[in-house]
């Protein structure tokens, strides 16, 4: 069952009297209970997409310029502020890269988690909320949670703060968790602890996860499906296994090939993608990857839609068949 569907989303950046798209014609579907990775480099529009889903774009700089977003059968773009409040933190939880800026530094963490429930579960007593908070902190692996309720965010390490954020996001058992680079600022050993935790919690609760990252290694560990973004658009979507074994867009292929982790011979040049990444607003007509693409032909002057490669696998490239010979 489709939980979230984004169709032809466009987000514009208004700056200096100009209007430039940063997300341009993005479509993506997410089923209930599924785990989907949204992968792209800086400026590709992946975080802006996440903020659009919750209508949290910083206005008036960024505005939704068109498209449809449906969550659980309802039109998110038509919601009023009360309906949106019902959505945020209740039906959709979100965690960010930097928990220090997302947590209130002058409020104890227990209080911050309870506040989410006060808003969305007013029928619960204070005692029930406290009970639930202790249970949540236990589930995210905080030692002696009942004693840490009155601790402040700065008293925790980066990894533990991210866990507190996760506890807060899960307080009301959301149907969807949006995770925007939640482990990027963490050390690799702490990252693996947090990834393990997100996997476990996802499997226990059956919530859907939209995991935004630039790291294909993280996607491989967390996501069943993945969408690759380039310059404001999804250029390939597939199951993670299919993307890793049969990448069908030249950009996805280039990204995978340039990873040192997948390169068998150290000290040899990596097959890098030539040129620089562009933002959606800088894209000319035609395929936006064409200027960096080694397989470019005249047909690429027309922008391809996502073409079907196989069931659950689509790529926005006229020549995808070339890669499967």
């Amino acid at each position: 069952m489709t939980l979230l569907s984004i169709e032809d989303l466009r987000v514009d950046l208004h700056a200096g009297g100009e209007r430039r798209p940063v997300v341009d014609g993005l479509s993506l579907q997410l089923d209930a209970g599924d785990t989907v990775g949204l992968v792209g480099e800086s400026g590709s529009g992946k975080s802006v997409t996440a903020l659009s889903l919750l209508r949290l774009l910083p206005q008036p700089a960024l505005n939704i310029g068109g498209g449809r977003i449906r969550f659980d059968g309802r039109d998110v773009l038509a919601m009023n502020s009360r309906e949106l409040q019902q959505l945020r933190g209740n039906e959709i939880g979100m965690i960010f890269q930097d928990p220090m800026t997302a947590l209130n530094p002058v409020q104890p963490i227990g209080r911050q988690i309870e506040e989410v429930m006060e808003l969305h579960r007013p029928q619960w007593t204070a005692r029930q909320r406290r009970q639930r908070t202790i249970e949540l902190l236990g589930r995210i692996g905080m030692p002696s949670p009942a004693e840490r309720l009155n601790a402040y965010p700065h008293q925790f390490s980066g990894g533990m703060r991210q866990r507190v954020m996760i506890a807060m996001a899960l307080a009301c058992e959301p149907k969807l968790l949006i995770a925007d680079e939640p482990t990027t600022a963490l050390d690799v050993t702490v990252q693996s602890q947090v990834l393990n935790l997100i996997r476990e919690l996802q499997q226990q609760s059956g919530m859907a996860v939209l995991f935004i990252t630039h790291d294909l290694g993280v996607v491989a560990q967390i996501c069943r499906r993945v969408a690759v973004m380039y310059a404001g658009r999804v250029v390939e979507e597939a199951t993670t296994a299919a993307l890793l074994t049969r990448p069908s867009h030249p950009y996805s292929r280039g990204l995978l090939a340039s990873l040192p982790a997948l390169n068998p011979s150290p000290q040899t040049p990596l097959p890098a993608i030539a040129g620089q990444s562009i933002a959606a607003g800088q894209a000319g007509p035609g395929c936006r990857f064409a200027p960096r693409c080694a397989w470019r032909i005249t047909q690429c002057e027309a922008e391809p839609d996502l073409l079907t490669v196989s069931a659950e696998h689509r790529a926005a490239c006229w020549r995808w068949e070339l890669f499967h010979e």
Partner: protein
Amino acid sequence: MSDRTEPLLQVRKLRKYFVQRSGVFRQHKRYVHAVDDVSFDIPRGETLGLVGESGCGKSTLGRTLLRLYQPDAGSIHFQGQELTALSGGEMRRMRRHLQMVFQDPYDSLNPRHSVGNIIEEPLLVHGMGDRRERQARVRALIDQVGLPADSVDRYPHEFSGGQRQRIGIARAIACNPAFIVCDEAVSALDVSIQAQIVNLLLDLRQSMELTLLFISHDLSVVRHLSDRVAVMYLGQIVEIAPAATIYENARHPYTRYLIAAIPQPRVDSTPPPAVGGDIPSPLAPPSGCRFHTRCPMATERCAHEAPLLELITTDGGEHRAACHYWRETPGRLP
């Protein structure tokens, strides 16, 4: 000068502590053990990778080698000279042979200087060539690092992250240094750009016969670039070996854990079973082996007795690890 067989850089028992003061009259002093009795060699032409998590002291070590921080104890022997014995002026002159590339190309370039001026500056400081020669050298450097020829008169903000890192590299190699410390030089870059800069470093290392200390938290990049790798934990080197040995036959539990934790972009990749806990504070490192608080193999002995960086083998390159139980590690840890 030194002969070819002597290492370019010999570091012995290097120590750098930072003082942290607290109290109303700042009377309480505590010491951050950032670099604590570190010894290693880098032979000429070698790339030594230095890995570890945040706060382990890897950046401090890199900066102390160039005396950007003053070492508290120990010696740094470079091309037959003792760097710790040099005066400020002598050290400044010495720096044309020892350079650094920083992580953040946004912060390490002066936004008010043109790219030409930025690259020319080290040549001016070290009094190399006349105006015409310097300008020719700047043009050659811009070409060598793969920047467009018209970059000379442009400013850093006009360039993308990858290109700014190229500017930083051009500045570092301007005086033909023998040794460069790369401190997280590719960490802030996007994947596709990172590969371009890695390739540039590989290319320069060969063409200029550079010796590199490549500091990074990204173990995949380090493996790709390094001949040998040193692993740091809380201010100390816990293992040092040829790159392939570190990744395939590490003997220190921390090294094995660090390598298992890299998310691999492969089908059915799963996060490894987590070794619990966070990195202890370098203000009060644990007694004995500093890793014992998180180590699944730790015994009573590890809490009391600090292990030495023991020689394991010289077969295929020297391999050392600081663990009492290195003989048992492969059977007991994944």
